[in-house]
């Protein structure tokens, strides 16, 4: 019995899940962050609008970039200002 291989198979260390939460939209009327996508070197482009996805780290102990883009829908003329929105992403096995 190869015990170390059992650990690798069970933990699935290299494939964490990404979960979105705590979304906070633009406060100014007329702007909304309606769509969000993320991309990694291994996982391509994936929607993360309200749900979960997979992020694969490719190299041990090395940063793997998870890059986010999205869509701001404009439904009214916004005031001149810096408008912000945000959401949390949680990486878990």
């Amino acid at each position: 019995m190869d015990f170390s291989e059992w650990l690798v198979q069970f933990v699935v260390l290299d494939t964490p899940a990404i979960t979105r939460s705590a979304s906070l939209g633009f406060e100014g009327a007329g702007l909304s962050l309606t769509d969000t996508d993320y991309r990694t070197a291994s996982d391509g482009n994936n929607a993360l609008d309200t749900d979960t996805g997979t992020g694969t780290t490719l190299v041990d102990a090395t940063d793997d970039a998870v890059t986010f883009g999205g869509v701001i829908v404009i439904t009214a003329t916004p005031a001149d200002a810096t408008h912000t929105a945000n959401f949390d992403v949680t990486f878990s096995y």
Partner: protein
Amino acid sequence: MKCNTFKLVAMTSAVALSAASSNYAFAQTETVNAQLITSSAITTTDVSDMDFGEYLIQFVAGDTPMLTLTNDGSVAVTQTGAVGNGSQVIQITAPASEGVVNVQTPAPATLTITRSASSDFADGGLSLTDTDYRTANDGNNALDADAATGTVTTLVAATDEAVTFGGIIAITATPGDATHAANFDVTFSY
């Protein structure tokens, strides 16, 4: 310990370790921020007046003399009406400037220009009857009366775009010798 017993213990340990491992929850949270800066401010500057110059004007009934000021940068005024009955409209001093208002936006944009609050010459016999504006992109356009609208295109970000005004003064009587003034507002909006 027999070989079979050893295998049983090993398997039991592996199962127990696997079950114990499932209790660990590895998770890390980061906040992704989105930022958008919006900037649409319209900046205007009154650069120069529609200066028609100085004239000797003697009106004769039945005529329709008019002074027409260009808006193409040539800064010229000509008498363009009918003076067959003997009206005299003679230039003494050439016009100094066409009317110019600069408008600027943070990025090239299309604006609406709207005329309002027109105040015609108070003196009888003079009336600013026609007004035209011109921009580099939008050509020549009439803006004759209050509530009249037109299009103004700013071509370069954060750079003054000149809106140049000319017009026509209709003469229907001999005015008193004076400096005669008229004006109107223009509002730029998206």
